[in-house]
C-alpha cells in the first residue's frame, strides 16, 4: 500500500508544477497588464507599481521569484484588493467553498447511491422510471438554470429561503446552493449506481448468497454494496472537479464569498497573484482528492495496487 501511494504522489507533484508554470506563463504571455484600466495614472507611477509587483523583470525571473515565495507559503499581495495579501483572501474564501463543496458532495453521494440502488432493485417498475427521469432531468438542465429557478420558487414565490448571501453558512442559506450544486452529480451518480448494481446482482456470488438463504437486505448490504461502490469511487475524481467548477458559478449566482468569486474577480482584473493563488488551491485540491480516490480504490480492489 505504501509504495502504491508514493508512486501516485510521484506523479502528483510534477502535475502541480505543470499547473503552476502553465497558468503563470499563460497569463504573462497575454498583452496588457493589471494597471491598464488606470488610464489616469502617470507613466512613472505605473512604472513604480509594476516594479513593486516585480512585473518589470523578465518573465523567467518573475517565475523564479514567485516559486521561491511560494515555497515559503507566501502567495504574494493581491493587486485589486490592495490592502490584502492573497493568503488573507484565500483564508476568507476557502472555508466557504470547502463547506459548500463538501456538503454538496456528501448530499450527492447519499442521494445518488440511494436513488440508483432503489431503481436497480425495482428495475422497470414505476419507481425506476421516476428516479431515472429525475436523473435525466438533472443531467440535461444545467445548474445555472436550476439555481435561478430555485430562487424564484423558494425565495420569491414561497418566501421560504433566502435567495442570496452566506450568513456564516447558516442552514437556510446553504439549502438552495447545495441543491443546485449537487443535482447534476446526483444525476450522474444515480445512473452509475443503477448500472453497476444491475451488473453486480447478476454475479454468481450474489446467487450463492441468495441460495444459502440470506434475506435480501443482507445480500444487498453485505455482498453487493462493496462491488457497487467501485465505479462510484472511480467517478469521485470527476465529481469533485465538477463540484468545484460548478461552485464558481453557484457562488456567483447566490452571492457567496467563496474562492470562485475571487477567481473570477481576479481573472477579470488581471490580478495575477490572486488568480495564481486560487488556481493553485483548486489544482492542489483536485490532485489530492484524486489521489485519495485512487487510494480508496486501491484499498477496495487489491488488483489495482500492483499494476
Amino acid at each position, binding site marked *: 500500500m505504501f509504495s502504491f501511494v508514493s508512486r501516485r504522489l510521484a*506523479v502528483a507533484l510534477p*502535475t502541480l508544477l*505543470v499547473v503552476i508554470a502553465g*497558468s503563470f506563463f499563460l497569463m504573462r504571455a497575454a498583452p496588457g497588464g493589471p494597471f491598464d484600466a488606470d488610464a489616469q495614472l502617470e507613466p512613472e507611477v505605473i512604472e513604480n507599481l509594476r516594479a513593486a509587483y516585480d512585473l518589470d523583470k523578465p518573465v523567467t525571473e518573475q517565475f523564479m521569484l514567485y516559486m521561491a515565495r511560494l515555497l515559503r507559503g507566501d502567495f504574494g499581495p493581491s493587486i485589486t484588493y490592495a490592502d490584502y495579501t492573497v493568503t488573507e483572501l484565500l483564508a476568507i474564501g476557502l472555508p466557504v467553498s470547502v463547506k459548500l463543496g463538501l456538503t454538496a458532495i456528501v448530499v450527492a453521494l447519499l442521494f445518488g447511491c440511494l436513488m440508483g440502488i432503489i431503481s436497480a432493485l425495482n428495475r422497470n417498475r414505476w419507481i425506476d422510471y421516476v428516479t431515472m427521469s429525475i436523473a435525466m432531468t438533472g443531467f440535461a438542465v444545467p445548474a445555472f*438554470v436550476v439555481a*435561478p429557478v430555485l430562487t424564484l420558487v423558494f425565495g420569491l414565490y414561497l418566501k421560504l429561503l433566502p435567495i442570496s448571501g452566506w450568513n456564516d453558512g447558516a442552514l437556510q442559506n446553504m439549502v438552495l446552493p447545495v441543491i443546485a450544486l449537487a443535482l447534476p452529480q446526483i444525476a450522474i451518480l444515480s445512473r452509475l449506481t443503477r448500472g453497476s448494481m444491475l451488473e453486480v446482482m447478476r454475479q454468481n456470488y450474489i446467487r450463492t448468497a441468495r441460495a444459502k438463504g440470506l434475506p435480501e437486505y443482507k445480500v444487498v448490504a453485505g455482498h453487493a454494496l462493496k462491488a457497487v461502490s467501485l465505479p462510484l469511487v472511480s467517478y469521485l475524481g470527476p465529481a469533485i472537479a465538477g463540484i468545484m*467548477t460548478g461552485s464558481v458559478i453557484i457562488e456567483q449566482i447566490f452571492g457567496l464569498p467563496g474562492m470562485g468569486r475571487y477567481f473570477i474577480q481576479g481573472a477579470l482584473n488581471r490580478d495575477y497573484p490572486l488568480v495564481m493563488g486560487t488556481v493553485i488551491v483548486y489544482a492542489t485540491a483536485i490532485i489530492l482528492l484524486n489521489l485519495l480516490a485512487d487510494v480508496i480504490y486501491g484499498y477496495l480492489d487489491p488488483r489495482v495496487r500492483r499494476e
Partner: protein
Amino acid sequence: MGFLTQRRDRQLAAMQAAGRTVGRSLWQDATRRFLSNKVAVGSVIVLLLISVMAVFAPLLSPHTMEDFYWEYILVPPTLENGHWFGTDSNGRDMFVRTFYGARVSLTIGVMTTAVALVIGVTWGSVAGFFGGKIDNFMMRIVDVLYALPLLFFIIILVTVFGRNIYLVFIGIGAVEWLTMSRIVRGQTLSVKQKEYVEAARAIGLSNLVIVRRHVVPNIVGPVIVFVTLLIPTTILVESYLSFLGLGVQEPMTSWGTLISQGAANIDTGPWLLLIPGTFLAITLFCFNFIGDGLRDALDPEGR
C-alpha cells in the same frame, strides 16, 4: 510480371468489393436498429426542427434581433405584436433572440467538437498505431492533463486574451479532446492485434490500406457515439462561460448569454430564463438520447 500484378489487382478488387458489401450491410443493420429506436428518432426530428428554426425563425418574425421597443419592455409571451416569446429588459424580441442564440450555441457545439475530434483522433491513433514508448509518452501527457482543472484554464485564456468567439472554440476544443484520444487509442490497439489485420499483413497489404480498410471502420462507431455525446458537453461549457460573462458577447447572443440575462431578471421576467433554458435542456436531452441510440445501434453486444 504484368500478368501477375494484374491478377493481384483483380483479386484485390474482388476482395474489396466483397468486403465493401459486408461493410455496407453492417451499416444497414445499424441504421435499421437506430430507426427502430423511437426516442432516438424523435430526438433527431426535434433537433432538426430546432436547427431549421435557428436558420429561418428570424424570417418568420416581424422583428429583428436588435430592434429596441421602448413601449414593450419586459412583456410576457403574447400573440400581440408578434412577441411570441415576450421581450427582454431592453424591449428586444425574445423569439428572434432565442433562435439567434440557438444558431450560435449549436454552431459552437459543432465547431468545438470538430476541433476536439481532429486533435483527439490524431493523438489517439498515432499513439495506438505506433505503440511502445511513443504510446506510453503520449498517453502519460493525457493522464497529466486529465488531472488538471482545465475549465479554469479556459477561463484564464478568455479573460487574458480577450473574449473572442474563436478563442472559445479553440479553448474548449483543446480541452475536450482527452477522452476522444483515449477511446481512439484503445480501439486502434485492439484492432491492431486482431487476426484479420495479421492476415492482411500476411497477404502484403500496405499500412495505409490496413488503416483504411480495418482500423478506420472499427474506430468510426465509437467515435460517432462519442461525438454526439461531446456536442452537448461543449454546448454546456460554452453556456457556462457565457453565463459568467466570459463567452459570447453583445450584440451577439447565445443560450448561455440569454440565460445569464434571464437570471438577472428572474423576479421581473422569469420567461427570459425559462425559454432559453428549456431550449438548452431539450437540445441536451436530444443529443444524449441520440448518443444512447447510436451506441445501441452500432454496438449491440454492449447492451
